[in-house]
C-alpha cells in the first residue's frame, strides 16, 4: 500500500528573503577542483517578458564526473569541497548567473555515457510544479551527439535548446572564466525542452 505523495504548490512571488542565499550561486566557494566556469542567461515567459520572480536549482557531478551522493559508487575521485548544488535567482531583468566547475561525464543507463551536463529545477510564480531541464555544453558536440537524454528529443531545434551557447568570458577578480549562456523560454517559439523525471 503506497502513501499518497504530497502535491506540489507554487513558490509564489515572495520567497527571496527566505530562500536566497547569495553564496549558493558560487558552487566553487569552498575551493572545488576543476575548470571554473560561469553560466548565465535569462528566464522568459510566453510573451518574451523576463520572469523576475523565478529561481533555478542546479545539480551536477564534480570535475571527475562523480556526484557527491552515497549512490554514486563510481571509482572516481570525490571532491569534499564540492557539493554540486546551487540555487540562483533572477534579477529585475530576468537574468541569472552562477559560477561552478565544468562537470565530468557520468554514466547513463546500460553501457551509455552521458555528455557533461547540469541538471536544473526551475521554480517561480506561475509554476504550480517546478520544471526540470538540463544544461549541456556547446564544445562537447561529439559527446552531446551520443548523449542518451538528448537522443530522446526528435526535433533538432528543440534538442538545441538544452545546449548552452558560448558567451563573452567573465572577468572575476583576476580570473577570466569561460562563460556559457543558457536562456530558458517557458512557452512558445523556441520553448526550452522540459523533462519529466
Amino acid at each position, binding site marked *: 500500500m*503506497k*502513501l*499518497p*505523495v*504530497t*502535491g*506540489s*504548490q*507554487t*513558490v*509564489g*512571488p*515572495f*520567497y*527571496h*528573503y*527566505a*530562500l536566497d*542565499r547569495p553564496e549558493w550561486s558560487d558552487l566553487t566557494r*569552498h575551493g572545488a577542483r576543476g575548470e571554473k566556469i560561469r553560466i548565465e542567461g535569462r528566464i522568459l*515567459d*510566453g510573451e518574451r*517578458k523576463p520572469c523576475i520572480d523565478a529561481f533555478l*536549482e542546479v*545539480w551536477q557531478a564534480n570535475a571527475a564526473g562523480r*556526484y*557527491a*551522493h552515497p*549512490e*554514486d559508487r563510481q571509482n572516481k575521485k570525490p571532491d569534499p569541497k564540492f*557539493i554540486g*548544488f546551487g540555487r540562483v535567482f533572477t534579477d529585475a531583468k530576468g537574468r541569472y548567473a552562477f559560477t561552478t566547475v565544468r562537470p565530468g561525464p*557520468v*554514466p*547513463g*543507463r*546500460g553501457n551509455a555515457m*552521458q555528455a557533461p*551536463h547540469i541538471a536544473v529545477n526551475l*521554480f*517561480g*510564480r*506561475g*509554476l*504550480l*510544479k*517546478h*520544471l526540470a531541464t538540463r544544461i549541456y555544453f556547446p564544445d562537447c558536440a561529439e559527446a552531446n551527439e551520443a548523449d542518451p*537524454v538528448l537522443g*530522446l528529443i526528435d526535433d533538432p531545434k*528543440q534538442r538545441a535548446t538544452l545546449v548552452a551557447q558560448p558567451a563573452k568570458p567573465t572577468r572575476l577578480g583576476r580570473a577570466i572564466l569561460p562563460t556559457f549562456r543558457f536562456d530558458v523560454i517557458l*512557452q*512558445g517559439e523556441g*520553448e*526550452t*525542452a*522540459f*523533462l*519529466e*523525471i
Partner: protein
Amino acid sequence: MSGRDPIPYAPEQPGAQPPNDYPAYKSTINRHPLRAPIRVPHTLTEVTGPSFTRRWHGKNLADLTLQHKGEPLGERIVIAGRVLDEDGRPVPDTLVELWQANAAGRYAHERDRHDAPLDRNFTGFGQVVTDKQGGWRFVSIKPGHYPWRNTHNAWRAQHLHFSIFGPAFATRIVTQMYFPGDPLLATDPIYHSIPDATARERLVAAYDPTLSEPEWALGFRWDIVLRGRAATPAEG
C-alpha cells in the same frame, strides 16, 4: 538494462500533482510550457541529489518567534510532522525550509505591497534538517489571509510555504501547508490545482492537541510524503 543501473523513482501518482496549464491561477497563462515534457528514464543524475550538512545550509532555525528582540504578534503555533517516502520509510537528514506571511498577512518581502502592517519581530523564515525518523518541528505564528490580484477581490487561504529536498534530484518538492477549517479552502485556486480531492486534502494539516504546548502554542500535525522507488532494491 545493466545490473548496475540505478533503481528509478516511482512515476507520478495520477491526480496527485497540479498541471502547469491551469488558467484559474492567472500567472500560469504565460508561463506553462505548450509542449509535453520529454520523459527521461532515471540515471545517476536523477537518483542523486544534494545532502546538507551544517556547513552547507547554515544553522537550524526551528523557532520563528525567537529571531528578533521582541515577540511577533499573532497566534503561536507548533507545526510538526515527518518526511516519509511513499513506502512509509522515513527520510532522515533532509533540509526542510519554511517561509510565510506574518499574522497580518504580509510578507517581509520588498515587493509585497499589501496594505497590512509589517512586524519588526517576524521575518517568517525557518529551516531544519529532519532527524533519524524523518521528524521535523517548527514554532511560529499563524499567518494571516492576504489578498492577491488573481481575480477581483481574491484572497488566499492561510498557508505556510514548504521546501523539501529528499534524497534525490527527482524527489525535490516545494508545496504549501493549509490549516483545517479555513473557509477559503473552498475556492482557493492554488489549492484546487491538485486534481485529486484526497491528494488535495493531504495539504491540510490536522489540529493535534498532543503537539500543543500548554498555556503557550496550538499544535498542528502535517506529514510530507516524497516519491519512493519504483521497485524495492534487492536485499544484500
